[in-house]
């Protein structure tokens, strides 16, 4: 069901990200760009789906910095534009952002940052909001799905009013949750794109201090607009015993907590949608009516710190106030919030019992289930090419015997830091940093370093950030082998196309950037292998690893198992010959099930043999090559 499927006035069940996209369309959006990253991917994904119908431009960009640059160009040319990224992506885009804020924009430009508290699908749980303060840009935080849509629409107006980027910070529980949203009219974009600066150096940092001063003025203008914003509201008694100040997903949790604890008469909630710069008058007015404040927000005490700054300035008129929240230890400073955590905080602050808990049932539930419920470790899918590649990496490193290791990167293959990839990945930081680290490791030779260095990255990650590191390695003659795990998809985030897939964001044919040719053009020795051919992959890797000096590349190419499942028939019918399977007596210590760990190949504890789970097996047949007893049979 697309975001334009329903008529204006209707209610539609929309994901927070879809609501943001819909808000942009209602605002007259003309241009959208992003690099995929959860929990932000569906914003541009849902816009791409309706791009033809709405006659707007949508692209998957090579990385977040380019996405923001491209969208800024649209803004400069008078076209309303949106860019979406996850918290890590903001770091990539921030060099441009920290200059764009000074030069300013023209048509509305909205940058949506989706944070991932608890790192549910991320390598960190960074709170992105300080960027608003750092860059002096307006910050909006939607709390509901309706607000996600309406706030996005308004963000374009604000951006145009102050001629600067407007930031929206969402979190997983808004972006990836769904709720009914009342739709308004769609606005088609104008057709008068033109770049025509109205003053000298308008889009340059000409006279930095002057531009910096203009930026301060824009912050003042924003603050005034925020004072009367419909996205800030208060519910509760005139003089609350406790005032909760909250934003984003914290609002629903606070509301539910106050209701559940039946404290509507004594606890008030000030819900802020405009969190930087703070609407000072509004906030101070509410702070003056209480002496206890609990701040409920996701990840860092950003709002809490800014409130305290404000209180510091107004100290003489406010009187004593006690703050509770993350700094006081009433709410956790790691992980995400939920209604239970907020209820506990309120109960502790007010010194009341939690009446909503049935302790006896909770204990019984715990006691009866704990021995039955196992953890579900996430791992590579059945038939995943990464499992096969890391099997060969493990064997090649062992055969080489010099203590070689793998610098990892960001993608599905990051899971190779765990049992699914035989614990082969030893470092994981940011996009492209595997190759970057390999540049450093690969130049430690004169300092006594003698271990072979491998780096891995996926095809999409290669385009995003590994290319500069690769060029650095060539130029500085670093000694390492880069494995490019080319599965023809941005698999981790939902199979978005990229520069190497031959398709555009709209699914139309696009130039296919040749990874192999690009590497060869740098003078690099490149080999290509099919990871399902374990012997060839191991041999090629070993050969590249043992060559002297410089950068080598091995492209391990095989489509993602989930993509294959949609487009291809299984290559083999796989079965275990129970006569040949010797079970625990084999001497291989159950290489098949204990070590290889494909979910399609399971240990039958009743019969003490391996067996194929036919519902899960993808028919790749790789396990047939790892069984020393040739008991796993693949039939074409």
């Amino acid at each position, binding site marked *: 069901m697309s975001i334009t499927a329903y008529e204006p006035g209707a209610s539609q069940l929309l994901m927070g990200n879809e609501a943001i996209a819909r808000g942009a369309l209602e605002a007259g959006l003309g241009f959208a760009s992003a690099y995929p990253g959860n929990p932000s991917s569906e914003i541009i994904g849902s816009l791409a789906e309706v791009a033809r119908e709405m006659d707007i431009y949508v692209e998957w960009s090579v990385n977040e910095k380019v996405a923001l640059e491209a969208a800024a160009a649209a803004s400069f040319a008078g076209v309303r534009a949106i860019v979406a990224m996850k918290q890590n992506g903001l770091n990539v885009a921030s060099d441009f952002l920290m200059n764009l804020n000074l030069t300013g924009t023209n048509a509305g430009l909205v940058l949506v940052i989706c944070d991932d508290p608890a790192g549910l699908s991320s390598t960190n749980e960074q709170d992105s909001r300080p960027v608003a303060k750092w860059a002096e840009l307006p910050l909006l935080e939607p709390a509901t*799905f309706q607000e996600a849509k309406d706030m996005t629409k308004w963000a374009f107006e604000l951006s145009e009013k102050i001629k600067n980027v407007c930031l929206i910070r969402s979190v997983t529980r808004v972006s990836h949750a769904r709720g*009914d949203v009342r739709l308004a009219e769609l606005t088609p974009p104008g057709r008068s794109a033109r770049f025509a600066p109205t003053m000298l150096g308008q889009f340059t940092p000409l006279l930095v201090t002057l531009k910096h001063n203009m930026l301060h003025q824009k912050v003042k203008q924003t603050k005034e607009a925020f004072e009367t914003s419909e996205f800030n509201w208060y519910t509760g008694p005139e003089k609350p015993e406790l005032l909760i100040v909250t934003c984003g997903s914290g609002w629903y949790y606070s509301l539910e907590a106050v209701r559940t604890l039946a404290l509507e008469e004594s606890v008030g909630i000030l819900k802020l949608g405009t969190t930087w710069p703070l609407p000072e008058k509004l906030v101070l007015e509410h702070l003056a009516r209480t002496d206890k404040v609990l701040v409920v927000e996701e990840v860092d005490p950003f709002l809490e710190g800014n409130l305290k700054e404000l209180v510091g300035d107004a100290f003489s008129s406010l009187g004593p106030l006690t703050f509770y929240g993350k700094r006081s230890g009433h709410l956790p400073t790691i992980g995400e919030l939920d209604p239970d955590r907020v209820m506990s905080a309120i109960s502790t602050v007010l010194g009341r019992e939690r009446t909503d808990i049935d302790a006896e049932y909770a204990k019984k539930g715990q006691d*009866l*289930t704990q021995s039955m419920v196992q953890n579900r470790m996430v791992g590579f899918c059945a038939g995943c090419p990464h499992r096969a590649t890391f099997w060969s990496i493990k064997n090649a490193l062992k055969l080489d015997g010099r203590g070689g290791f793998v610098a990892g990167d960001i993608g*599905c293959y990051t899971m190779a830091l765990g049992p699914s990839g035989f614990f082969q990945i030893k470092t994981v930081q940011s996009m492209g940093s595997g190759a970057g680290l390999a540049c450093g490791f690969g130049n430690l030779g004169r300092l006594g370093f003698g271990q072979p260095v491998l780096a891995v990255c996926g095809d999409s990650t290669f385009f995003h950030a590994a290319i500069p590191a690769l060029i650095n390695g060539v130029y500085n003659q670093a000694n390492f082998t880069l494995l490019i795990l080319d599965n023809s998809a941005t698999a981790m985030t939902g199979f978005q196309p990229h520069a190497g897939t031959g398709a555009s964001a709209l699914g139309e044919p696009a130039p296919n950037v040749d990874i192999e040719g690009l590497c060869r053009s740098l003078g690099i020795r490149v080999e290509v292998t099919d990871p399902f051919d374990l012997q060839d992959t191991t041999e090629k890797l070993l050969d590249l690893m043992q060559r002297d000096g410089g950068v080598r590349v091995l492209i391990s190419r095989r489509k993602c198992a989930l993509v294959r499942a949609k487009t291809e028939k299984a290559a083999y019918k796989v079965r275990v010959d129970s006569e040949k399977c010797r079970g625990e007596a084999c001497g291989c210590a159950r290489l098949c099930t204990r070590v290889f760990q494909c979910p399609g190949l399971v240990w039958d504890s009743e019969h003490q043999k391996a067996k194929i789970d036919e519902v899960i097996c993808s028919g790749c047949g790789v396990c047939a090559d790892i069984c020393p007893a040739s008991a796993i049979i693949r039939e074409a």
Partner: protein
Amino acid sequence: MKEKDPLNVIVTGVGGQGNVLVSQFIGRALVRAGYRVTIGETYGASQRGGAVMSHLRISRQAQYGPLIPSGQADVILGLEPVETLRVLAQYGNPAVTVITNSRPVYPLSVAIGAARYPTVEEIMTVLEELSASAWLINATDVAVEMGAPILANIVMVGALVGAGLLPLGPEEVELEFQESLSGDRLELNLKAFKRGLAEAKARLRRSGSVSG
């Protein structure tokens, strides 16, 4: 039919079982019927064998937050038995109704022979102990019989509606299928849904109880 407001429903299963699809179908049908609906989804690892859970908040009056507080579920729909147990322990209460598929999806620890998976009888004993009513549906078996094991999730939706645990009639859900699907997929989904309805109805007849 339950009148509680908000009605808190949790759909749980393992990545790849179609958990998110189930919550979306139900959610869209409820919005069409005029309810305020919120769905909170935990699917960071949905394609990769992880535990998946959708929280549905259904209300006539207001929209609720995306996470149900501990101990506050009214209905738990489980696509996988151990996941049903996991969710029940945290979100259950003496009044909760549980309806679960009987077919396990083994965690890796079980598949590799490092842990034991409880028997269906053991699971049912605990489910009954911790709920007001526990339904076991052989949804995967029904779906396998239809030649499409993936449709176990839709069989379960049928059983949920047939058991009268949602403020929705079968025709309202069928309408949603007709709006979202077409061709063979629509036919198969409708068939699976009806098989689920029948499973629930048969059980109601057997027990002689009337729900909804």
